[in-house]
């Protein structure tokens, strides 16, 4: 490396590092700092409250309600999405049985894959607007429109018992296709000889699925689980756009992300919002760590 290695390195790094330092690193440092202050967002930051914001959180029923909803999504979003995606991916790649000794997917698997994947391309905000109408609480809603004339319209999002379930359904609707494609790619890497050998031994499709596909795909499933978990901590666009009273009815769909947004920009509680952000950060880390260590097992090489 002769001519001017260091000027070149600095020249290439200065803009990206500066942008990242100002808008990302500095913002995160500030979030930790603000979390111990009571600050409305205006004027100087001087009212130090120590752990006051966190104590306030402890007594805040909406906070616990939001945590409950996030945990609900955290449990069910990955389980349902991964199971559905695994089944569909298996049917698409291996479900066609064998012809001439070659394992293949069912007929038309390409078309299915293209359709399934499409929702992933739509912004969650757009999906939220669409499903706000799909779940419309009168005959103008798609699902209520499909019900027989004589039925009372269901309230869906306006009913606090089912509102959170509706959110979950929409998240699953959007996510499944992406993981079908992801798992398909993983299944494509499993050598067909493995399937053939098992099939010669008389393995049924169920056996193939549980004894070969899942173990060999375990790493991908793990990654999917973490991604979906992180998505479960967000859900902001859905809750903000789709739900009744944004997070309602009566807090029935409030989630942490919405609480952070509203405290920061609507309730003039920037300090409290930052404290909630710190909690969200530690929850996300804990989740990723627990998932990765709980699901660790001997990875099987194909």
């Amino acid at each position, binding site marked *: 490396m002769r001519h001017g290695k260091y000027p070149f390195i600095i020249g290439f790094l200065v803009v990206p590092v500066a942008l990242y330092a100002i808008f990302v690193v500095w913002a995160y440092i500030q979030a930790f700092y*603000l979390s111990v202050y009571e600050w409305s967002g205006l004027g100087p930051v001087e009212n130090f409250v120590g752990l006051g914001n966190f104590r306030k959180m402890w007594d805040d029923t909406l906070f616990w309600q939001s945590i409950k909803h996030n945990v609900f999504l955290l449990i069910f979003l990955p389980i349902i999405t991964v199971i559905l995606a695994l089944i569909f991916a298996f*049917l698409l790649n291996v479900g066609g049985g064998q012809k001439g000794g070659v394992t293949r997917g069912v007929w038309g698997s390409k078309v299915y894959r293209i359709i399934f994947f499409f929702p992933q391309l*739509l912004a*969650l905000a757009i999906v939220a607007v*669409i499903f706000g109408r799909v779940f419309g609480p009168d005959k*103008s809603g798609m699902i209520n429109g499909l019900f027989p004339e004589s039925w009372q319209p269901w309230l869906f999002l306006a009913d606090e018992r089912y509102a959170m379930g509706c959110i979950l359904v929409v998240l699953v609707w959007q996510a499944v296709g992406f993981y079908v494609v992801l798992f398909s790619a993983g299944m494509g890497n499993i050598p067909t000889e493995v399937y053939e050998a098992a099939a010669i031994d008389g393995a049924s499709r169920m056996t193939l699925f549980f*004894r070969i596909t899942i173990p060999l795909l375990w790493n991908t499933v793990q990654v999917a689980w973490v991604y979906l978990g992180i998505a479960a901590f967000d859900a902001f*666009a859905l809750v903000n756009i789709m739900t009744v009273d944004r997070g309602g009815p009566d807090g029935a769909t409030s989630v*942490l992300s919405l609480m*952070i947004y509203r405290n920061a920009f609507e309730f003039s509680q920037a300090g409290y919002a930052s404290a909630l952000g710190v909690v969200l950060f530690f929850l996300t880390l804990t989740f990723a760590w627990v998932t990765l260590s709980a699901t660790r097992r001997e990875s099987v090489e194909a």
Partner: protein
Amino acid sequence: MTTITKTPGPSTASAGRAPNQKRDLKIATGLSHVALVAWALITAGPLLWVLLASFKSNTEIFLGKPFALPNSFSFDTYVNAWSDAHIGRYFINSVFVVLISTAGTMLFGAMAAYVLARYKFPGNRAIYYLFVSGLAFPTFMALAPLFYILKGMGLLGSYTGLVLVYIAYSLPFTIFFLVAFFKSLPYEIEEAATVDGASHVRKFFQIMMPMARSGLVSITIFNIVGQWNQYLLPVVIMSGPGADQKLLLTQGIAQISVSAGYQAEWSTLFAALVLTILPMIIVYAIFQRQIQSGLTAGAVK
């Protein structure tokens, strides 16, 4: 694998089993198709419904029968959505912002990734980990501080601010992905170029960038889709006086949805949704293979 090794006896037993197995297989394949068709309908149904409803009058929408064809195909709702509800403007705003921010992300991301992947210097690891650790932090955490940083710089409600923030928040993943990619490229060509006296900058633009094409394409698609679909950052940043002219598509649709709700006047909203989704379908139809591999690139390593 002990349970499945029960091989049938060589001749008679397997001969008796064959027709049965074939029938089972047919039933299983049939069931597979039922499941797959059902999910395809669930996926496409709401989108098809939006398309049909976009041609209906408000009265027709409230009649129920969501999948009935509209009485007449009038494009009035589309004219309303495009001009009165400003979908056209929001669309152009989004295209403009994403074009610049993705270009910026790719340029700065590739520059940083190249240097971090192929040059030894003190602090290299530290900078790399600083970028990659950004993947662990939820954007929500930084929301309030980010707002005040932009406000302090006078960038609130400006495209400049939005583009810079998009770039900054796209860098961790872009750099993480591209560093791995640049490391996997062969060193011989680069060395030959050095011997020939090519400068560092020239090597980057004329040798490494073309060699890294496939990786760059994947991550470009990833960033375009990610930034196009952003909702949170525009909602936070494009606020304040004068911002309503500058809304992005995701924000705009959300706003139309709210005002349509107040008036219980849905047909314009449906037309607006179609105008938003249709371009995505067209782009997807042309580039579906690249898009699928670009978006899944991050997860398959």
